[in-house]
């Protein structure tokens, strides 16, 4: 099974995250829809304010990635944004971000979509773009302001947040990509048609044949091909639609809690969709030590998983505090009630 391994080594030159300050507790969703009964899948989720969207979230993470990379934005040869909540159906998010960070006009801009794995795709493509000498740097972003239909199970977890990565030469990198691998099949577990506001999903179908099949296969194959077992990794980050799925998959792959706890953010910020696995990765990079081996695996409905094995370099410690850490954003917490949530996320419509 061929892994994706560029002929020239590349890595992460800068990374950044953004999480909005509002939190909607899951028990507040349960209070409205289930009389407060039943168990909830997470503690609370991050919710964007009325003036925030995927562009503003992606932009602040990109600015943080630039602060860590300390490069001239004019040398960024591509700005790619993965999301399922781009502010426009037609008009790219990427050009707005490229302009706002000063990367325009000589740059490649594109928006990507593949449910929750649209963010990791920009990184995987960026590895090839940089390794092939097409550009010195690529900016890859995953960001979402995910929405569930009011009362749907997804409403407990569908959250807002994002992360950005600047891919560049290995010598400048704080972590180097050892290899990546992508595993996709045609699985209709979750979808949204163009003119509808909220997604639909195949209920129980979302677990076994979708999330677990793809995340487990991608993880097992990349580890096996590289000759690693769970013990070789300091950290693992799996796509996190809730708390249970990544914990179960992680344990089944032979990992222990100490390896996933730093990168498992869904219990306290929810599922940030295209941001989810790569936001978990920012929390890991914030505290990682030189030499740490990291496994990061996304999952996108429809369905597929992108897996990455990264090795932190000596440069990581000098980069960690050049921008706010993911924990800084998590600490900036303001609890809201369901009514405020409905107003902030413009949910007083059902189409």
């Amino acid at each position: 099974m061929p892994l994706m391994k560029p002929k020239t080594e590349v890595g992460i030159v800068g990374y950044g995250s953004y999480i909005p300050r509002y939190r909607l507790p899951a028990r507040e969703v349960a209070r409205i829809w289930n009389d407060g009964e039943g168990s909830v899948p997470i503690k609370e989720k991050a919710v964007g304010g009325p003036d925030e969207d995927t562009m503003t979230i992606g932009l602040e993470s990109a600015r943080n990635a630039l602060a860590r990379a300390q490069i001239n934005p004019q040398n960024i040869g591509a700005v790619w944004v993965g999301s399922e909540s781009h502010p426009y159906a037609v008009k790219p998010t990427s050009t707005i971000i490229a302009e706002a960070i000063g990367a325009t006009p000589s740059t490649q801009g594109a928006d990507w979509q593949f449910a929750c794995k649209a963010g990791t795709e920009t990184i995987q493509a960026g590895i090839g773009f940089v390794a092939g000498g097409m550009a010195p740097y690529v900016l890859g972003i995953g960001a979402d302001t995910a929405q569930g239909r009011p009362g749907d199970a997804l409403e407990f977890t569908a959250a807002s947040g994002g992360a950005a990565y600047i891919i560049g030469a290995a010598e400048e990198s704080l972590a180097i990509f050892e290899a990546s691998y992508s595993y996709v099949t045609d699985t209709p577990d979750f979808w949204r048609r163009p003119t509808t506001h909220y997604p639909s999903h195949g209920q129980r179908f979302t677990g076994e044949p979708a999330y677990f099949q793809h995340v487990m296969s991608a993880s097992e194959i990349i580890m096996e091909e590289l000759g690693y077992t769970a013990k070789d990794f300091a950290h693992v980050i799996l796509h996190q639609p809730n708390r249970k799925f990544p914990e179960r998959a992680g344990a089944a792959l032979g990992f222990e809690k100490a390896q996933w706890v730093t990168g498992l953010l869904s219990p306290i910020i929810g599922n940030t969709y295209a941001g989810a696995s790569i936001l978990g990765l920012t929390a890991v990079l914030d505290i990682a030590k030189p030499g740490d081996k990291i496994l990061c695996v996304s999952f996108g409905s429809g369905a597929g998983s992108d897996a990455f094995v990264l090795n932190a370099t000596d440069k990581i410690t000098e980069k960690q505090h050049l921008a706010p850490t993911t924990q800084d954003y998590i600490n900036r917490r303001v609890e809201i009630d369901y009514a405020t949530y409905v107003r902030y996320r413009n949910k007083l419509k059902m189409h």
Partner: protein
Amino acid sequence: MATEIARHWRLNSQRYRLVGEVCPKCGVKMFPPRDVCTDCLDDSRQPDFEFSGHGEVYSFTTVHNAPEGYQESAPYTVALIKLEEGPLLTAQLTDVENSEVEIGMPVEMVTRKLRTQGEEGVIIYGYKFRPRLPVAH
């Protein structure tokens, strides 16, 4: 055509990146860009200057009856911000309770939605200011 695009880009760089000017003669920093220096009246071509985005609240007022296109965020606070490089500018504050705003409060620039032209129009993005993010070291 080219000058039209250039003017648009110049406005974007003001709105998205706080790009102003620095006077080549006396060094005063200006925002927004002007043709003549506000200090020494020098009118030679002024190079661009990108502001740090850091400043403090100089004065403020809370808007309850928002004009069309701004109702989504009402009530909100509009402040006169003193940038650390000198100039004053007017901007909406965000990520803050209106009752928490104080004169002298340290703030930083963020890019947010300023307004939307209805369900079908364009989204206008630009600078707002929020309380400086507490960062642990």
